[in-house]
């Protein structure tokens, strides 16, 4: 992959309006989801917190946090970074930037509407699928508008390249609408019967991670790490096998949450086998990135941290899906810890890395404050590690008092055993929120540099850009 050239600089400046809009919305949602996560976390050890407020029962706060995080932060940031990579690797200026702006506005209206709806009690009620039925079509259409730029980046690409980052970006961009619309039809418009809903929801939730979020994160990593470290990725010829393993096998692992549940046993068995097969994918990712990791810049540090968390999450999933382990890990905070490890530790951290790399190039100016960037790095690192450790420990304590008992467990015992760890998880949420506030301020100050000259529109006209590119 070539290093930054005049071409990329021109392309970046041309496409910065829509991309910065997506990134700004993403960072804003990140802070909002942080506040919601803090509320939900406090409620776990102090049930009286907001107990009088029907809008913020624990169940609703949890759904709100998850939706703001996945569809607010990860979706906006992932789409921005994915399009950025797709356009840069295509070697052509971004086309349909206006569509992206319109799509981004409606996507974020849709997410806002969803949050109000969930707080009012209209959640669809499945993991990663809490969006109320009336907001779903809006989100799908808005995604379509944003996706136009992706389609045009693919059809108009100048180089017939075979970069791993490209496969991952386009897989993510194009698989989400299908996944999301299938889930809408089978869960909302023509709902399947009984436990089939849980099976579909498991398939969908896994698809959101394996076919959308993880590929977007991997695209960022495959694009950035060789660039930053200046090294060729070893064993790159195997990347293609890693890619297809994730795409083909990923979705099959969804049934692991239904082990021992009222569903046919083969669903769990297939999921366990698929989790083991996925170890091959993680192994390829490890082979590719083993020498590119580092801590020299914020971008490199976050991406490396994210990749390590990604590998760890793959191992953890393979282990806790085994029946003997699931017996004790199921239904406990261990599952939440694993989810936070993949969503926050892996995907979100890689996105942070790519954000630190992309924003200065889009704005044409380095980050406003290195103090805020440093603060963000340390607080988020502490927060993620503490959160995952605390939830895991809480899960062990919970499992011991609940599943270790030979007589009815007293839930007061469970609560007192988990309380210290849940307090620690709240401390972690505070650190994460503070860190992300620093990111928001830093981001706003950096982007504000554009304002005196002109609104963050298209400062380079298409004909002028064409001249640069040709």
């Amino acid at each position: 992959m070539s290093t930054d050239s005049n071409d990329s600089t021109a392309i970046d400046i041309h496409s910065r309006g829509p991309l910065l809009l997506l990134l700004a919305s993403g960072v804003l949602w990140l802070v909002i989801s942080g506040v919601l996560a803090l509320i939900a976390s406090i409620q776990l050890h102090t049930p009286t917190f907001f107990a009088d407020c029907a809008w913020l029962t624990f169940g609703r706060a949890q759904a709100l946090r998850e939706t703001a995080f996945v569809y607010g932060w990860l979706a906006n940031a992932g789409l921005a970074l994915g399009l950025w990579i797709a356009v840069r690797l295509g070697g052509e200026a971004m086309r349909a930037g206006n569509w992206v702006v319109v799509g981004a506005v409606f996507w974020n209206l849709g997410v806002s509407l969803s949050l109000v709806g969930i707080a009012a009690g209209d959640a669809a009620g499945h993991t990663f699928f809490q969006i109320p039925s009336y907001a779903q079509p809006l989100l799908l259409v808005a995604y379509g508008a944003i996706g136009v730029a992706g389609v045009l980046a693919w059809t108009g690409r100048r180089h017939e390249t075979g970069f791993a980052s490209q496969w991952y970006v386009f897989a993510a961009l194009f698989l989400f609408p299908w996944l999301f619309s299938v889930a809408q039809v089978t869960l909302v418009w023509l709902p399947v019967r009984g436990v089939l809903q849980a099976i579909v929801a498991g398939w969908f939730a896994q698809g959101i991670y394996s076919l959308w979020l993880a590929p977007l994160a991997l695209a960022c990593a495959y694009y950035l790490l060789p660039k930053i470290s200046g090294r060729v990725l070893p064993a790159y010829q195997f990347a293609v096998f890693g890619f297809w393993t994730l795409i083909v096998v990923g979705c099959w692992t969804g049934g692991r949450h239904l082990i021992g549940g009222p569903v046919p046993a083969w669903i769990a068995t297939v999921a366990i086998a698929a989790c083991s097969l996925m170890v091959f994918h993680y192994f390829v990712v490890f082979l590719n990135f083993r020498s590119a990791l580092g801590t020299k810049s914020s971008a490199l540090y976050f991406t490396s941290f994210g990749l390590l968390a990604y590998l760890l999450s793959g191992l953890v999933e393979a282990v806790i899906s085994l029946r003997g382990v699931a017996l004790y890990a199921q239904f406990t905070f261990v599952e939440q810890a694993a989810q936070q490890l993949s969503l926050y530790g892996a995907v979100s951290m890689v996105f942070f890395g790519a954000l630190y790399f992309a924003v200065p190039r889009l704005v044409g100016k380095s980050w406003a404050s290195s103090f805020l960037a440093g603060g963000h790095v340390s607080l988020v690192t502490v927060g993620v590690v503490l959160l995952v450790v605390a939830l895991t420990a809480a899960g062990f304590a919970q499992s011991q008092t609940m599943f270790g008992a030979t007589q009815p467990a007293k839930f007061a015992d469970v609560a007192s055993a988990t309380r210290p760890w849940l307090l620690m998880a709240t401390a972690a949420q505070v650190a994460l929120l503070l860190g992300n506030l620093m990111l928001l301020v830093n981001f706003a100050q950096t982007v504000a540099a554009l304002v005196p000259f002109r609104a963050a529109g298209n400062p380079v006209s298409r004909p002028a850009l064409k001249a640069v590119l040709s």
Partner: protein
Amino acid sequence: MKNGPLFFFGLFASLTFSFAGVVLFSNYQLGGLAPYYDDSEGKSFPERLPGVAARGQMVYRDLGCIACHTQQVRRPSFGNDQAQGWGDRQSVARDYIHQPYPQLGAARIGQDLTNLAGRKPSALDAEDLMKLLYLGQGAMPAYKFLFQDVKVSGQVPKTALKLTGKNSPSPGHAVVPTERAQVLVAYLLSLKTAYDYPESRPVVKSAAKAEGAHQ
């Protein structure tokens, strides 16, 4: 991967494959699951929820009770759900066929509620449940917004909670459940897995082995 159409065909084939395998195949297996007709009892199981309980399930769903409570009991040989008193038999797919929104759940911050109203030796009754919702207990918050503090002159309403000590309302007042609380409790009281389906009986290992030995 220089061949664009082939690349996209591969993507869609992969997703279709998992959709067909996981969703369509299980739908083929379970989609036609019918209630089980018991000759000796002369009716079929599971029974439909009475209307008021079905409305209660909507309240259960919209408050997000599923975030802390599961409604699926694991089989006696897999985990200690039976020892917890949550149910003597495992939950099976047939239990949920009449439910528009099965609330299987994925976290047990609180108890499993599959068989809440069928617990032995004694299950909570409506009054206990109302008090539990109003006062909370341990990690369970008090859902005071499901109740109203009303002024009473003369006769106290029949539905008023019988509260004592520091929880009792100020003189001349009574705490009465809202309609939402009433349907929610009706739903909770309908949570029973009293009937044993053939597929819910655990496989007895020794019997299976003995059968194998004969062959």
